[in-house]
C-alpha cells in the first residue's frame, strides 16, 4: 500500500513537471515567433509584442522554479535519493537559475528600450536565440535525468 502511494505520488510529480515544462516550451515558442516576425520599419510594435511574450516566459519559468524547488517536487525527491543524483539536481537547478536570470535581464532590457529610437532587432534576436538555446538544452538534460531515475526505479522494482 505504501509503495502504491509512493508510485502515485511519483506519477503525480512527473505529470506536474511535464505540464510545467510544456508551458515553458509553449511560451518559448511564442517568444521565438515574435522575435522572428518582421521587425525592421516596425521596431516599436515588434518590441511590444516581444516584451509581452518574454513576460509570459518569465512567468512560466517562475512557476517551473516554484514547483521544482518545493519540498515534495520531483527534483527535490530525486536529490534525496543519493549523492550522485543530488549533485546533478543541484547543477540543474543552478543552470535553470542562470536561464531565469537571463530571461529576467532580457525583459528589463526590452523594457528599457521601449522609448528608445535605437532598437537593434538583429542583436535582440541573437540574445533571444542564445537564451532559448540554453533553456532547451537544460530541459533536455532534465528529461534525461528523470528518465534515468525512472529506469533505475524500474530496475530496482524488478
Amino acid at each position: 500500500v505504501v509503495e502504491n502511494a509512493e508510485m502515485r505520488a511519483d506519477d503525480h510529480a512527473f505529470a506536474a513537471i511535464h505540464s510545467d515544462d510544456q508551458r515553458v516550451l509553449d511560451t518559448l515558442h511564442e517568444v521565438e515567433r515574435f522575435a522572428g516576425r518582421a521587425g525592421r520599419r516596425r521596431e516599436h510594435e515588434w518590441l511590444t509584442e516581444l516584451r509581452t511574450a518574454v513576460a509570459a516566459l518569465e512567468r512560466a519559468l517562475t512557476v517551473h522554479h516554484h514547483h521544482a524547488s518545493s519540498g515534495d517536487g520531483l527534483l527535490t525527491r530525486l536529490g534525496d535519493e543519493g549523492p550522485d543524483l543530488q549533485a546533478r539536481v543541484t547543477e540543474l537547478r543552478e543552470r535553470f537559475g542562470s536561464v531565469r536570470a537571463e530571461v529576467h535581464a532580457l525583459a528589463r532590457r526590452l523594457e528599457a528600450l521601449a522609448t528608445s529610437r535605437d532598437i537593434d532587432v538583429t542583436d535582440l534576436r541573437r540574445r533571444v536565440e542564445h537564451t532559448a538555446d540554453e533553456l532547451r538544452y537544460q530541459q533536455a538534460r532534465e528529461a534525461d535525468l528523470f528518465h534515468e531515475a525512472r529506469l533505475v526505479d524500474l530496475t530496482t522494482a524488478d
Partner: protein
Amino acid sequence: LAVESVPVPDSLRLTSPERARLKARERDHERTVAAMYRLERAAGAPAPGRDDAWRLDVVGALASLENAVSEEQTNANRPDSLLSELVRGQPRLRARVRALRVQHDQERQAIAWLRREIVQHTDGHADYADLRRQVASLLSGLRYEQAREADLVYEALVTSAV
C-alpha cells in the same frame, strides 16, 4: 494560421494576388515551423538508455524538416512566388533575395548532411549532447533566415505601397 510572420498593416491595400502569394508563403513557413518543433521535441526527448529509439526519432524529424524546407524552397523559387514577384517589382531587392535563396539551400544541405551523419554512425552510443548541439545550431540558422526573410518581405511591401 498562427501569428503571421509578416504582419500586414491596415493601411496597406494589397491586391488579391498579392494576398494569395503572402498566404501561400505563410503556409510554407508554418509547415517548416511545425517540422522544426518536431525536431526540437525529438532532440529534447530523454536519450540515455534508449539511444536507438532516440536516434530514430531525430532522423525521422530531420527527414520531415528536410522535406518541409525543400518544399518551401521550391515554392519560393517559382516565378509566381512572393519573392519572385517582389524582385520583379523592385529590382534593387535582387541581391538580397538571391542571398536568401542561397542561404536556404545551404540550410537544406546542412539538414540532409546531419541526417546522413546520424544514419551512418549507428554503432555504439550516440553522443546525444553533441547531436543536440548540432540540431540547436541548425534550428538557430533556420530561425535567423526566417526572420531575415520576414524583414525583407515586410520592408518590400511597405516600400512598394509608398
